[in-house]
């Protein structure tokens, strides 16, 4: 591959190869300050390649490939190469990760206690997590929560937060301009802008936390809080996991352990400030 970049995020190391320089330059800027993997070793390989040889130059089109691929994935225009790299890393984790139980969730931590926020796309978990990350919480990740299969603790995986549409404006008001990637307009999901986690999140990316609360946030409703039954929590978490089935008995033990020992709440919220307030309340109760 013509160009390459190595990146370490939490316990996972990637190498990203690309036929074009631009996406890797953008990626390097976005992840400024992240450590490089030791010894040039990595867990996963991502490749950004032209869909067809001539598409390297003519209407450049980036196919997302690597160790693990989605056969029917549509390529992206070169202008969205950064997004392709991010999607490529997501794909490697979603399809190939077997060391930890993966939950599609955003995680924030304070005083050693972590809140795991999970739910459908568009529920606003990324935005909430990003906001909490600017309000004294440590952002551990916005896309994947990593659960240790034996200990049940959470490992940080602080990727750049993927902000969409309205959320971009919300976070532009909160975080320094230098931490943002370029605004990518017209993606299949609308406008996207990536936000690098703050210095603390990066510095502490090796520090685990105990899960203290599982949260199912739902955006767009009047504020409400309710408990969630354990069986429902279990079912929703298996749906939120890409590798639960492949992990067999160990996955079962880790997930039942999590569900039995960690309380769960569902919250509806009309705006992010309300949610932040609710979560601050929970934290006080948990600390008490």
């Amino acid at each position, binding site marked *: *591959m013509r160009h390459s970049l190595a990146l370490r995020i939490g316990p996972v190391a990637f190498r990203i190869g690309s036929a074009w320089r631009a996406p890797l330059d953008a990626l390097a800027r976005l992840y400024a300050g992240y450590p490089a993997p030791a010894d040039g*070793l*990595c867990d996963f*390989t991502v*490749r950004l390649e032209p869909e067809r040889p001539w598409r390297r130059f003519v209407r450049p089109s980036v196919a997302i490939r690597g160790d693990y691929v989605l056969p029917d994935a549509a390529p992206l225009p070169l202008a969205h190469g950064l997004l392709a790299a991010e999607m490529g890393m997501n794909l490697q984790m979603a399809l*190939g990760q*077997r060391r930890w139980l993966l939950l599609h969730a955003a995680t924030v931590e304070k005083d050693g206690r972590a809140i795991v926020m999970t739910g459908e796309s568009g529920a606003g978990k990324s935005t909430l997590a990003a906001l909490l990350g600017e309000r004294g919480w440590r952002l551990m990740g916005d896309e994947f929560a990593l659960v240790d299969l034996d200990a049940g603790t959470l490992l940080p995986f602080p990727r750049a937060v993927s902000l969409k549409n309205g959320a971009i404006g919300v976070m532009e008001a909160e975080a320094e301009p230098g931490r943002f990637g370029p605004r990518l307009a017209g993606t299949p999901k609308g406008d996207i802008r990536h936000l690098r986690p703050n210095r603390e999140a990066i510095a502490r990316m090796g520090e685990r936390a105990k899960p203290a609360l599982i949260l199912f946030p739902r955006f767009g409703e009047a504020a409400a809080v309710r408990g969630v039954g354990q069986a429902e929590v279990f079912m929703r978490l298996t749906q939120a996991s890409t590798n639960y089935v*492949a992990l067999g008995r160990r996955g079962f033990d880790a997930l039942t352990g999590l569900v039995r020992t960690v309380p769960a709440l569902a919250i509806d919220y009309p705006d992010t400030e309300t949610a932040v307030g609710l979560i601050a309340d929970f934290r006080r109760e948990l600390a008490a």
Partner: protein
Amino acid sequence: MTGARLLVRALRDPGAIGECDWPGLVSAARAEQLIGSLAFRMEGRKVPERIEALFEAARRDSAQVRTQALWEAEMCRRALAPLGIPVVLMKGTAFHAAGLEASIGRSVGDLDILVPRDRLAAVEAALVEAGWEHVKPTDGYDDSYYRRWMHELPPLIHKDRDRMIDVHHTILPLTARPRPDAAALIADSVLLENGLRILSPADIIVHAAAHLFADGDLAGGLRNLWDIDRLLREFDSPDFRRRLEERARLHQLAGPVARALRLSHRLYGTPAAAGRLTLADRLFEARLLARNGWGQERRKLLRFAFYLRGHWLRMPPPMLARHLWIKATR
């Protein structure tokens, strides 16, 4: 050295890999569906920590792959038991079911079974009754073409477990020139404890060789040859060699089997029939090794030539012309 060449070296002689391009080895192994086999070959060897963690995860994953593969076989057994027909497991699932050395770290995709051709309709009905569904619509040109000329039913997928089953009635398409003896494959099959069957050891190797050469474009070839290497080492004896030659001739696959042995010896050091590589063998070898340290397939022209060859072998020219015409004008 990296990519496919490094992978072959590591499988063949894990102790000989000292400092190497580990990411290149892992990417090639993943691309060739050999990461599980590699992880077991490398067990106990000196490997950097991060890579050892990957291998450890791959070894564990292997156990779950085996469980799921054998479960598919079991559910198939339950569905077909009332029919009272021989059901012969094939490929990876068969290796796992019989605990063969070729099963160590072996990945498994679909469940492949072989049944008598005259019971195909009953088998299909029983599977559908038990929750399998057709993947593609069951009418029109594609489906009737498939049923008339292919060696298997159109693929079925289980509606709850989301796993595919391929029901074969012979091991090569009916349009291919070699005509394996499907009845003999079944007659010589070996009964397992649970009532399912696998092909006889010699027939397993003939099938692997057929699958490798006459059936497709060599994708997955390194794994196929690794299967053959493991199988031969487990069963080899002078008697077995004779038996293998007999069965290869019976199934009109003497050429492909001989080629498979030469290539297996060349790549993996299998104590097989040596014999010098032909010019064609060298092209096969080049095609099999055409993967670099980023996991990319190289040598496009060579790959395309083999792709065409795969189609050619599957279909005589007039049929191919009609087939392409229908596809193009639909």
